[in-house]
């Protein structure tokens, strides 16, 4: 019953999930077992790159959940992503221990550099993985709870919500740039050594992180799918399509929006936490409003309101980004900008919508040809 609801009725999702599972099996095999001179070998660099894409896909999923289904456009999802990343980064910093440049047993390098003599209270506990993992969920979740409660309660919707979320991430970016905040200021957190006792640069760790990201993405997808196919999901869609009417029907619109927003922010936090050990750095740049708005365009390019469309979008846009930035870095912003315009003007349903349209045209074409042959026979 549950599989029917989550998977079988969702063909696109099944295809995309299948591809991810395939990737999660094939890529490690090709990396570890295939000799490096073979054409089928996948380099560790590619593994990390794909792992990054998987995190982005999870993030795109979280954006699609609230934008595609509840019509809440958040231009501040980068904040939740980065907060999750910082929580993981703090754990990784504490794992460095006395191997830092200054060799202090507890304090990270940048604190020694700032002449701090003890760990600030909010760094306590981050030497334990379970605590950090909890914070990855709690910090973005709490922020979303407070912010969402304030915003939804006073019925800030649509464009206004988009702008104040953008202001939120902008404010956090400015705050995290300050050295006094105790998060490494401009440079952020970097030079990580190990995670859970394994060296972070080792091949095995990279593969594990990659597989973990793939698993998280699949889990996240199923969870989102569970939500949108539930009764709550229907209410949420009706909020998107007619908010006042839903409210008049007696549903507590604010609570529905709030819980969805909090869940989405936690997903974004998890994506950030998986992203940081793979790229090896987290800095305030992740909070920049440009980043957050880029996430939205992944979803728009893939096709909003389909969940698997978000994954398709995150992969294809980021793949294009990798291609363009290696080929000619200057042109990427032109392409990205054009993508924004094209997607909104010509492809409102994104790539997924384009596939559907092509398929439908093909179908009507074949229907037409069948009809014509039939009519010929009739003649």
């Amino acid at each position, binding site marked *: 019953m549950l599989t029917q609801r989550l998977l079988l009725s969702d063909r696109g999702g099944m295809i995309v999930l299948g591809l991810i599972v395939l990737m999660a099996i094939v890529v490690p095999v090709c990396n570890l077992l295939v000799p490096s001179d073979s054409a089928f070998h996948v380099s560790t660099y590619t593994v990390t790159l794909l792992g990054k894409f998987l995190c982005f896909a999870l993030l795109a999923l979280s954006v699609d959940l609230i934008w595609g289904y509840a019509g809440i*456009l958040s231009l501040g999802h980068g904040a939740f992503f980065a907060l999750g990343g910082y929580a993981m980064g703090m754990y990784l910093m504490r794992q460095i221990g006395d191997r830092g440049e200054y060799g202090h047993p507890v304090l990270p390098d940048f604190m020694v550099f700032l002449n701090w003599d003890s760990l600030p209270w909010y760094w306590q506990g981050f030497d334990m993985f379970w605590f950090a993992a909890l914070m990855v969920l709690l910090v973005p979740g709490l922020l979303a709870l407070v*912010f969402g409660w*304030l*915003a939804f*309660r*006073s*019925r*800030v919707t*649509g*464009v*206004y919500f*988009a*702008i*104040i979320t*953008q*202001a*939120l991430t*902008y*404010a956090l970016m*400015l*705050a995290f*740039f*300050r050295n006094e905040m105790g998060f490494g200021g401009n440079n952020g957190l970097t030079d990580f050594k190990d995670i859970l006792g394994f060296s972070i640069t080792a091949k095995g760790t990279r593969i594990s992180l990659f597989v973990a990201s793939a698993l998280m993405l699949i889990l996240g997808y199923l969870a989102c799918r569970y939500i949108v196919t539930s009764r709550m999901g229907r209410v949420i869609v009706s909020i998107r399509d007619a908010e006042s009417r839903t409210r008049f029907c007696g549903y507590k619109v604010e609570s529905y929006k709030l819980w969805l927003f909090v869940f989405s922010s936690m997903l974004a936090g998890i994506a950030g936490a998986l992203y940081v050990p793979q790229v090896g750095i987290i800095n305030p740049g992740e909070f920049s*409003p440009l980043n957050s*708005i880029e996430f*939205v*365009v992944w979803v*728009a390019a893939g096709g909003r309101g389909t969940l698997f469309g978000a994954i398709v979008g995150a992969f294809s846009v980021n793949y294009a980004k990798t291609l363009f930035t290696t080929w000619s870095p*200057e042109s990427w*912003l*032109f392409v*990205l*900008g*054009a*993508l*924004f*315009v094209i*997607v*909104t*003007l010509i492809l*409102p349903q994104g790539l997924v919508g384009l596939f559907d349209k092509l398929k439908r045209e093909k179908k009507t074409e074949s229907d037409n040809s069948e009809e014509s042959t039939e009519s010929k026979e009739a003649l």
Partner: protein
Amino acid sequence: MNTTGQPRTHIGRLFLSLLLPLLLCVCTTAYAQNEEALAEQARAIAQASLMKRDDAIDALTQVAHPRVPVILSALLEGNLYSDDEDENRILIERADGSLENALTGESLGTDIDTKRIPVTTRMRTQIRNILARLNLDSENTQTRYEAVQRMIKEGIDENNVELLKARGEVEDARLVNETIESALALYDLQSDNERVRLSAIKSLRGSLVGETRNELRRLRDYDPVPAVQEAAAEALESIQTKLEFYKLVESIFFGLSLGSVLLLAAIGLAITFGVMGVINMAHGELMMIGAYTTWVIQQLFPDQIAWSLAMAVPAAFLVSGLVGIAIERGVIRFLYGRPLETLLATFGLSLILQQAARTIFSPLNRSVELPVWMSGSLQLNPALSLTLNRLYILAFGLIVFFLLMAILKRTSLGLKVRAVSQNRSMARAVGVRASWVDAMTFGLGSGIAGVAGVALSQLTNVGPNLGQAYIIDSFMVVVFGGVGNLWGTLVGAMGLGVINKFMEPWAGAVLAKVLVLVMLILFIQKRPKGLFPQKGRAAE
């Protein structure tokens, strides 16, 4: 503060700046007649014997020529030379070791055999006094003010007092006069007679010259007469209150100045977002285009810097306005009624425009030259000086604001804009070409963004990221003030600017910005429709 005299001097300055080129022409012809006299007297200094040189110096002082102070200060510093081969040629050594012709200032390179023209200590004192007098008698109020300030800093002695008294009798600028009075009183403080000291303290009450407080503190702590000590303490207190007041005035000014920049950035948005309901994330880039227009105009007419702004304002309005119309016709037209899509599409446009600026003008910042009439500051008193460029931009922001108000309220375009924004179908029914009005309105808003860019180019460097820095702030202003209400935008911009500047001293610039953003988010909770919400049916 003299509130009535203020605008007059202000306008006077503007007037003067427009006349400046003309004045310069007149002056040059007058100086031409003095060229020969200058050459003659300068030669006399070089050739006179050491004993007669002071007479030669006095004679040189009589010549009215802008090079006279330059030659004298070179002589004072020991940088004045005569050419070994050509006795008639007088040279000045510059700070970097190269030589220039003392009479014309033309550069001569380094390889010339020279002989230093020596000065005695007595002559140094003489030259110092002459220079002080020359500066004191200068036509420029600022130079006179600075001369008095320098004298105070170096300590007033008998020689200076005479000079200052003489100047005080003919001086008509209030600022210089007050400073001279303070200087004379400061001299009197050193007197042995306690009556003189007391009356000096009395006249120093409320004097804002920096040295006054040190001197008064000395008297308060060490003066042998208790009455003088008391008077000094009292005077110090009154000065302190006054200083605090002017500090407050200064913060308000800086706040209003920041507010005026926000206002300029936000009124364009108030049109496109407030009146038309279109979210234009490329608004900042339209400002950037305006700023680059200023830069390009300065590159095209490098010797017309004084007039470049007069050309740049209409040019930037046109360029940004046309780009805006192109954006409206090409993209936004298809997205009316879909605000979130509009937001994304215009954001994409902003990325394209930014990258285009990087490709065309290089990613480096360009600096736009400040015209002479905009540089410098308006010294109201020793504790308060207002930078001219900020003052002009403040005025400019208000002018643009009221002009826009007039366009919306008094012209037929404004009438149509309001009609279309209030009831589109009814406006069309009575024959308003709604789509044409849309394009014009958007062009107007964009043009104003371009004009804001011109103003911004006078405050910061022009770069591809120029607009980005203001876009969030200006959206905040519009949201804070209330969408669709220009007065709200004015109050919102000025309010945010002042709040920001008042928080800066104790919170730091970045934290102040963060706090303001947080406060705004909380403010929106209380008043989701801004300070001045639209009432009635138009509200939803």
